[in-house]
């Protein structure tokens, strides 16, 4: 088959296989837009370089913690509880050997910080969950419509009703007790 014909067929494949995207996806993504997009910062750039170079994950995590501490100090150190929670999250991942990708941890921490800065009442379970359980709830917060948004240990997110949340929490606590 000639290259041109193959190219045409690939374009046809793209056209015919364009499956519909879940309608709520764009809104889910928009919910995660930070109030202020981060501009160039030396500390964050350091993290990116480390992640891009894919150096030792423990070293990368240590630098992430250090950078967070430096930022918190630099910004006045008022959010000591949030910082404590962030450090616990990373420390927990580190100690359990669950830290897999720098960006994952950084994304969870950014999310947590963003939500608390937005004044959301975030319940954080990073220090009590079983790190092996990818379905454990890492954090949860209430939405304006009365439902809850849940972030799982593997960073998946889902909107659930109060009844579903109780089920998830029960399952998580049962798993922990076992």
């Amino acid at each position, binding site marked *: 088959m000639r290259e041109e014909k193959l190219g045409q*067929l690939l374009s046809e494949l*793209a056209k015919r*296989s364009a*499956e519909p995207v879940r309608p709520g996806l764009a809104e889910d993504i928009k919910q995660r837009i930070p109030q202020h997009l981060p501009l160039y910062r030396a500390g964050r750039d350091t993290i990116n370089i480390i992640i891009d170079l894919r150096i030792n994950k423990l070293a990368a995590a240590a630098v992430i913690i250090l950078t967070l501490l430096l930022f918190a100090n630099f910004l006045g150190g008022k959010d000591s509880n949030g910082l404590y929670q962030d450090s616990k999250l990373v420390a927990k991942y580190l100690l359990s050997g669950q830290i897999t990708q720098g960006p994952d941890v950084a994304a969870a921490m950014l999310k947590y910080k963003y939500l608390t800065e937005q004044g959301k009442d975030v319940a954080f379970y990073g220090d009590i969950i079983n790190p092996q359980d990818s379905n454990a709830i890492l954090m949860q917060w209430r939405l304006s419509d009365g439902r809850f948004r849940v972030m799982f240990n593997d960073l998946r997110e889902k909107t659930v009703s109060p009844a579903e949340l109780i089920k998830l929490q029960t399952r998580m606590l049962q798993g922990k007790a076992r």
Partner: protein
Amino acid sequence: MERRLDSLAEQLKKGDPQAASELVDTYYEGIYLYMRRLGHNQQTSEDLTQESFMRAWQHTEQLQNNSALNGWLYRIAGNASRQYWRKHKGRNAVSIEGFEIPHGQDSEDEKLALQEQLSRLSSAVAKLPLKLRDVVVLHYMQHLSIAEAAEATGVRKGTFKSRLNRALKTLRKEFG
């Protein structure tokens, strides 16, 4: 369209959250389909699409050239996909199934033949090595220009073209 993307890139660099929202509206379907065409299942594609945008907002300082918005975003998305495959080495690529063949003047036989051709081609694309699959998807299915797709894969245009040739050669062999 090009001017709108230029202004969008400019606003993103200034840290405007409204531009971040516009970026989502403009690209979320494209990035989701890019993930699906790279062989991720629906749930993973959604997760990786979300992650790509989150990473994009953290990397606006890397958006140096306004006209490179496509290449910049697809590069971030491609990195997210590659990291996923590295993390889940045992997983196989899944090809999209079910093709929309519109009712037209073609006979039933012609429609069936086209459906079969597309199905075989889809499997052949899914079997390509990751690097080759990426170039085919970016150029032929996401319709990025050679320059944009080369930017997205982080290689020179010449290297990209040579990968594309290799990919087409492999597909021709598989596809007959």
